[in-house]
């Protein structure tokens, strides 16, 4: 049995990087209970520079999570609540006339930050979504006649409420594709929920001038970062040192191709999806202190990378097919022949006695 002869051995992840990751996770864990997967996806996005879309009902600590993450790594953080009357200039910035000097000067918008939380992105009009997504892609913004580079690192974490859809503008597939990951948040487990309540009861009140306000989780955020931007940059570099075997690449290519040929899918994955799968898998491997990616990374990230990039056709929807069901089929047996049998709906998932 031979392995890839051309592959150069790579060192294990740097200890400093693994320590940094552990420290960040621990800091986040001090404030946010559970949501390990979301924290992992946030770190993956941060380490790869890919943007993250979070889908979940309100009250799942999305804002708190992003806030604590930014404070843990000493990153600037802005939050924009998207509404239907929001204008592109409200995010990007605009030129303002200074009446004293009679000249225009540029007022930069909240997009000039390291972490931007675009809350309920689907509530804004398409032109605002386009402006943001364009900035996400190009990482530069033009205000008036001047072009400004966005700070590095720059990461957009957008949220969408999957339930309340009236008065929203659904992001088109082309724009969804710009998000490297789309993670669907779930409710905490009963144990986690119990811990949330326990911590909340201990918060107390905060005195403010002559009055007092009830403390929230934001009040207990430690302002001392556990890492620096330099640590983050090291981690980003370490991601690129993670080994990707040819076999893993074959798995990714097969998965992406299957999505393009699956009978239930009207729209399959773009090449960007394959790139995102490899990038995210490398970051996940690093987070799990590995210097090589494995199919486990692929299986864990497939849902977040693929599901928002594919679209079920009418027949599949009428048959009650769902995205996760299709994903299970996509992750089914490898190989052309079995793939065909899967397509015909036979023998693909034969049970073992």
């Amino acid at each position, binding site marked *: 049995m031979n392995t890839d002869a051309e592959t150069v051995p790579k060192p294990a992840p740097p200890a400093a990087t693994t320590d940094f990751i552990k420290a960040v996770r621990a800091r986040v864990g001090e404030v946010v209970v559970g949501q390990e997967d979301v924290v992992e996806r946030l770190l993956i996005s941060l380490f790869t520079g890919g943007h993250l879309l979070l889908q979940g009902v309100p009250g799942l600590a999305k804002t708190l999570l992003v806030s604590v993450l930014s404070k843990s790594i000493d990153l600037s953080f802005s939050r924009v609540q998207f509404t239907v009357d929001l204008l592109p200039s409200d995010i990007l910035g605009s030129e303002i006339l200074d009446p004293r000097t009679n000249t225009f000067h540029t007022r930069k918008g909240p997009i000039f930050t390291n972490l931007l939380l675009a809350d309920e992105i689907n509530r804004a009009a398409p032109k605002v979504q386009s402006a943001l997504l364009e900035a996400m892609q190009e990482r530069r913004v033009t205000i008036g006649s001047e072009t400004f580079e966005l700070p590095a690192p720059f990461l957009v974490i957008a949220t969408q409420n999957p339930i309340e859809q009236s008065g929203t503008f659904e992001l088109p597939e082309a724009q969804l594709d710009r998000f490297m990951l789309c993670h669907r948040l779930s409710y905490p487990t009963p144990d986690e929920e119990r811990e949330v309540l326990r911590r909340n009861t201990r918060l107390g009140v905060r005195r403010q001038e002559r009055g007092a306000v009830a403390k929230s989780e934001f009040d207990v955020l430690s302002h001392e970062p556990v890492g620096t931007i330099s640590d983050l940059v090291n981690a980003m570099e370490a991601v690129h040192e993670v080994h990707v075997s040819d076999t893993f690449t074959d798995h990714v290519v097969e998965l992406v191709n299957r999505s393009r040929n699956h009978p239930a899918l009207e729209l399959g994955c773009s090449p960007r999806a394959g790139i995102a799968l490899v990038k995210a898998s490398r970051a996940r491997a690093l987070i799990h202190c590995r210097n090589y990616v494995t199919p486990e990374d692929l299986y864990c990230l497939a*849902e977040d990378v693929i599901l928002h990039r594919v679209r079920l056709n009418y027949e599949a929807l009428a048959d009650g097919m769902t995205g996760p069901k299709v994903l299970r089929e996509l992750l089914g*047996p490898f190989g*052309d022949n079995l793939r065909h049998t899967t397509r015909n709906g*036979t*023998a693909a*998932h034969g*049970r*073992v006695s």
Partner: protein
Amino acid sequence: MNKQMGLKSIVLAVVASFCFGTAPAQPAESRTRVSVGMIGKLDQVLIPGGELEAQPTSDPLAKIVVRVAETFRHGDAFRYNLEFTGMEPGRYDLTKSLKRKKPDEPTANMAPIEVEVISALPEGKIEPSKPNAPMIPGWMLYWTKLDVLVVVWIIGLALIWGKSKTTSKVAAQAELPPQTLGQHLKPLVQAACDGTIKPNQRAELESLLIQYWTSKLELANDIAPGLILTTLKNHAEAGPLILQMEGWLHMPVGEGMKNSADLATLLKPYDSISESPTMPSIPGKGQA
């Protein structure tokens, strides 16, 4: 200009007189002789005496029906346009179907107006003849042609269907891919144990082994895809194989090579895997 107009009018008058003026008058005999069921007309028949009208009849089997179409005064007498329809062949006197409008005036002094209703059929024949036999041969008839076409179409369809069925059967027999997980897995495991597996088959082998254990432990529908491999790695039987495969296929060179002999040992039982769609457990291994 006027000369030309005059010439034109003369030519038109000549043509008109040729067309209309020279038509021969209908002979009196033809006017009084009609076929059964046809309407005969007698115009301007002068009948002395008071005004006449048709005698009403309620007999549905009346042999002749007479109608006074128009009446004109002619001094003390009247002129009539008469119409009649004969229902049976024979000679009839139309005056018998007429009566005075004033009932006190007699009709006996009227001269008879005789008409003849003739039959178009030969003597004694009361039904029309059947149409002549067709001039075209029987096989050229529409329905015959249609029947032939239907038969040919059905035969053609049957031939095409039979041929396509045979062809697809032959093609399926010739290129029938392995259908079961076992049929796929076996040659790959053999090649992996022999060290002859191609680089592009390694991913397939790994995927099939993951699928094998996923099916065996019935994980496919129970847990999220992200947890499948974690579960398999923690499984007593599947774990060592999955981890060994990972080391062999995904670790950088030098880290994954060292245990390749152990992998061959681990893969050996899968060599005798069943090829049936529902694979039994691996020989020598316990049921999961």
